[in-house]
């Protein structure tokens, strides 16, 4: 079994809301000081899903990432966690791409990698929240897809995917090769040991430039960004005070009653 996992390095989405700023002139985020980049959380779940298949059914796991100046310290975490190979599509031209161009480039790279049975992606990236790159890759490659997976397993000679629905789950059987997108329900990425982290530092990386993929201009771009802004939703909070927490709680309930909220 050959698995390809697509991952993206993003600004830490857990950064404090107060440190988040947008440059209104360029519509770009000003990276907050002291907030290091991280692997996109859903992509970590995707890698974990791949590693679980590797353990139960045997597989090689190739991690694929696209970007400009990808943080090697961050991306090597996937090797430390158990991926076998890392392919980086890295070029100055790979900045501010839309979902269409991103999916096209990743699909090109996957064709270049050649053999694969399963492609696993996170269900969306924490920065652009585009939510369509994975399924776009499947469409470009002409393979079936299952989205929003909470569990992926290879059993009885087929891939079984538990899809998380609003009120439960459905198990989908899918013919291979296939693409799966996963959410946080798939489980947190394992923490690699020190030895694995050290070994990952020494493993070679495969780096492909734009020219290697025949990429010159983002002709495939279809989505334009008109404006990025921070929504203002500050309300005036009526804080009920009292000598003890219990009295404050009772005061709060009374106030809600007076306001006819209760």
């Amino acid at each position, binding site marked *: 079994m050959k698995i390809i996992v697509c991952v993206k390095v993003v*600004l830490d*989405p857990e950064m404090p*809301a107060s440190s*988040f700023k947008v440059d209104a002139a360029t519509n770009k*985020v000003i990276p907050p000081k002291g907030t290091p980049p991280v692997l996109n959380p859903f992509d970590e779940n995707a890698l974990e899903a791949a590693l679980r298949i590797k353990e139960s059914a045997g597989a090689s796991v190739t991690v694929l990432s696209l970007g400009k100046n990808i943080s090697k310290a961050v991306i090597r975490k996937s090797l430390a966690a158990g991926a076998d190979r890392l392919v980086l599509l890295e070029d100055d031209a790979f900045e501010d791409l839309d979902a*269409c161009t991103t*999916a096209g480039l990743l699909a090109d790279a996957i064709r270049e990698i050649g053999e694969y049975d399963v492609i696993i992606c996170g269900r969306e990236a924490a920065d652009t*929240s*585009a*939510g*369509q790159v*994975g*399924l*776009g890759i499947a*469409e470009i490659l002409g*393979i*079936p*897809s*299952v*989205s*929003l997976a909470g569990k992926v397993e290879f059993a009885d000679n087929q891939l079984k995917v538990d899809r*998380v629905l*609003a*009120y*439960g*789950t*459905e*198990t989908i059987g899918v*013919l291979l090769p296939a693409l799966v997108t996963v959410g*946080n*329900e798939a489980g*947190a990425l394992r923490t690699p040991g020190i030895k694995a982290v050290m070994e990952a530092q020494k493993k070679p990386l495969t780096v492909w430039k734009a020219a290697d993929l025949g990429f010159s201009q983002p002709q495939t771009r*279809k*989505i*334009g*960004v008109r*404006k*990025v*802004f*921070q929504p203002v*939703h*500050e*309300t*005036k*909070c*009526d*804080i*009920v005070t*009292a000598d*003890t*927490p*219990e009295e*404050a*709680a009772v005061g*709060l309930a*009374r106030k*809600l009653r007076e*306001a006819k*909220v*209760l």
Partner: protein
Amino acid sequence: MADYQGVLVHCETSEGKLASIAAELLAAGKSLAGELGQELSAVLIGSDIAGLSQEVISRGADRVYVVDQPLLKDYLTDSYLQAMVKVIGQAAPRIVLLGQTHLGRDLAPRLAFRLNTAAVMDCVALAIDPATRRLLMTKPVYGGNAQAIQVCESDPQVATVRSKVVSPLPMDSGRQGGVINVAVDIDPALVRTRVLARKAETSTGVKLEDAAVVVTGGRGIGGAEGFKQLAELAGTLNGAVGATRPACDNQWISDNAQVGLTGKIVSPNLYIAVAVSGSSQHLSGCSSSKVIVAINKDPEANIFKSAHYGIVADWKKALPAFTAKVKELVSG
């Protein structure tokens, strides 16, 4: 290039009924079609759903495309894609709207890529740009820390719309409209997935998305035990229990209870956030609640910026007293 005209809305159904998102999308689509001076069409896909056509018209559609076939009983990406592609070929809409539901999230990207266009997912506002007449789509980015206004430069412009950002139009049962039955020759060889099993999570009480009162616990609750106390308060108010992502990730409560950008979107009359810090990701899922009440021991917690009422207190001390007083007030 074909001459794309009008707005097409996918009307999702659930257990033989129109889903609430369908009525919301019809209202959104009606307003956009009005701005363009064009028509609003709808598409119903499924098995035994043709009977819903009049309701779709009553909710604002000028025309309904109906694809009613037994093979479409279950949502499967490949079969629904074939149906949508056929209808879009016939209707040639400028704008296609779907819900940001598990169906829309799955179908919209594949549909857009198949039509060689693009989708913008999870829109919270839609408008027509007066200058270019193209669709301006506003969506959260960076985990809800920011919003982006995006434009799709190719037709049809595909968008998914978050639930509860548009109010449905009142039913006008006298409204007239056209019903067009579309037969799709679904090629089973091209349907590469199948449903092996389905498991409904047994939910006790009110569904989170429909609840008029939601009591949500955050990381500060500290364990599954605390959620029992939240359930008691929720039960008193005939409400539902929600949770933040960290609480779900720690398995203090089911993933189905997660409120936020990556969980469920709620807009109850009363939202009580207990030990919730108020991350953008979380607020994105509850900020349209009518009244937000926060109980948090940190006076600097971000939740107080979105809350209408609050107390700065340790929830362990405050909540039992609050629940007891609420019980007294609502029973009295």
